[in-house]
């Protein structure tokens, strides 16, 4: 058969179109999937919890049933005792996390973009990043007492390290060409720092930021158990002194729910701030 000659495209005037933006269809199905499995898992967990008490495997003196816990939680919310203790905790966590976020990222970018700083800081970082927070509690109390300052400081400490260490690494991953292209556009240091390095490294900051957010409440409760007037750690401690087992678990439930909330907020922030990445191959 003779080859057919097709009309060639006008090479001079045409340019291949951009690839269409496709959204996978499977995502929706997977979402319901995880919802169903998640519900089953949660119900199973509650059942086991209830059974171990109902069958007398664990004394209700140490472990409240799910129903009692829920009741104590609802009552605590209704009479305002849980919010009264949760609110100061949330404030401390947010303030501490916020300070750590700013300081951690600014220092992280500085240390990450100046190799000399990185080398100087290396041994000190190695020491502090793995040091147990609990070992440092007495130090914080000695310096700052058991008031607000020491509690916030502990949160700052616990949040700072993951953010900072992660940021140092993230800055190293910023493509040189982006910085060079900003320089040729006439950008100064401040512009490059805030408008190029920061947004370019932002997606890689998030693992550290998430870890820090999770650390915030852990560290805070430890700090509150040392003492103080109000806070979720204190709420739990007081319930324990009074043998109010359901209240202990209501306090723990509150912390757990706050953890889920924090995680959701972080995911939302991440999705929003890195929305330009959607559709890129790496995500």
């Amino acid at each position, binding site marked *: 058969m003779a080859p057919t000659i097709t009309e060639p*495209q006008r090479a*001079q005037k045409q340019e*291949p179109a951009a*690839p269409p*933006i496709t959204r996978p269809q499977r995502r929706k199905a997977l979402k319901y999937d995880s919802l169903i499995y998640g519900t089953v898992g949660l119900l199973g967990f509650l059942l086991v919890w209830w059974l171990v008490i109902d069958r007398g495997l664990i004394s209700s003196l140490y472990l409240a049933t799910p129903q009692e816990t829920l009741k104590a939680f609802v009552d605590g919310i209704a009479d305002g005792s849980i919010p009264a203790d949760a609110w100061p905790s949330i404030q401390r966590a947010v303030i501490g996390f916020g300070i750590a976020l700013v300081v951690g990222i600014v220092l992280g970018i500085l240390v990450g973009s100046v190799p000399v700083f990185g080398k100087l800081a290396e041994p000190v970082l190695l020491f502090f990043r793995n040091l147990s927070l609990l070992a440092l509690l007495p130090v914080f109390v000695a310096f700052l007492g058991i008031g607000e300052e020491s509690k916030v400081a502990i949160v700052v400490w616990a949040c700072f390290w993951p953010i900072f260490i992660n940021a140092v690494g993230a800055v190293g991953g910023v493509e040189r060409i*982006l910085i060079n292209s900003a320089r040729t556009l006439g950008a100064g240091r401040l512009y490059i720092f805030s*408008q190029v390095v920061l947004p370019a490294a932002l997606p890689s900051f998030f693992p550290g930021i998430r870890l820090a957010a999770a650390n915030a409440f852990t560290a805070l409760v430890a700090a509150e158990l040392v003492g103080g007037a109000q806070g979720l750690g204190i709420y739990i401690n007081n319930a324990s002194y009074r043998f109010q087992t359901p209240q202990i678990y209501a306090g723990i439930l509150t912390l757990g729910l706050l953890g889920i909330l924090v995680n959701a907020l972080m995911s939302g922030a991440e999705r929003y701030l890195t929305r*330009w990445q959607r559709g890129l191959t790496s995500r």
Partner: protein
Amino acid sequence: MTTAVQTAKIAAHGVEKEFPGNKVLEDFDLQIKGGEFLSLLGPSGCGKSTFLNILAGLETYDGGDVLVDGKHVEGVNKDVGVVFQSYALFPWLTAQKNVEAGLKIRGVPRKERRDRAAEVLRTVGLQTAANRLPHQLSGGMRQRVAIARILAYEPDVLLFDEPFAALDAQTREFLQGELLRIWENGTTKKTVLFVTHSIDEAIFLSDRIAVMTRAPGRVKALIDVDLPRPRTSESRNTEDFIHIRSQVARILEEEVRLGTDNH
């Protein structure tokens, strides 16, 4: 200082550049007149991109003089615009915002910035893509945004570092035509240094071609391209074009052969 230096927009004399254990430029001389389109052509690794980076102020040099408007290049010059091979657009900014970047750095007010960016995007034929992110654009469109980005702040000197090398042949020819259209129609003729390893590209675009030796690189030959402007795709088929191509190819081949003999 000689008069030649004073009239040249860009002048390089005896430029030396060495990376650890690797001499890239040696005794490199080149003069580019104001409003001239000059292509720097050479085998890969000959130092042509290094010279461009020196001129852009991104790289230091170890000896000789590099002058723009009679002044030594020291750091980045705000009157110079660079287009890189790998686009180098900010992936988190829309095409429009990318084009605005140079203006924002220069403190141009928001409204003016937006109007100017829209205008330049129209010039490169991308007005409909203004709100798209770089990864939603094809390679050719991205490179047009990169060109728009430097046109926006109106530098005197445009530097191109193999801007079309990563594109397919069809897009490449299209963009060469676009670049010429923009440059030839510009109100003030910009001075252009265009680094490439494509002979056809160099001939089609340039007033003059500087062919480099292999590393350590210097300018081996300067070839005038007397093809009439405005040039169209038909210019590629003229006898003059073909004649210049064989001339340039011969010079380049010699270099490549010398290079392989060395091994």
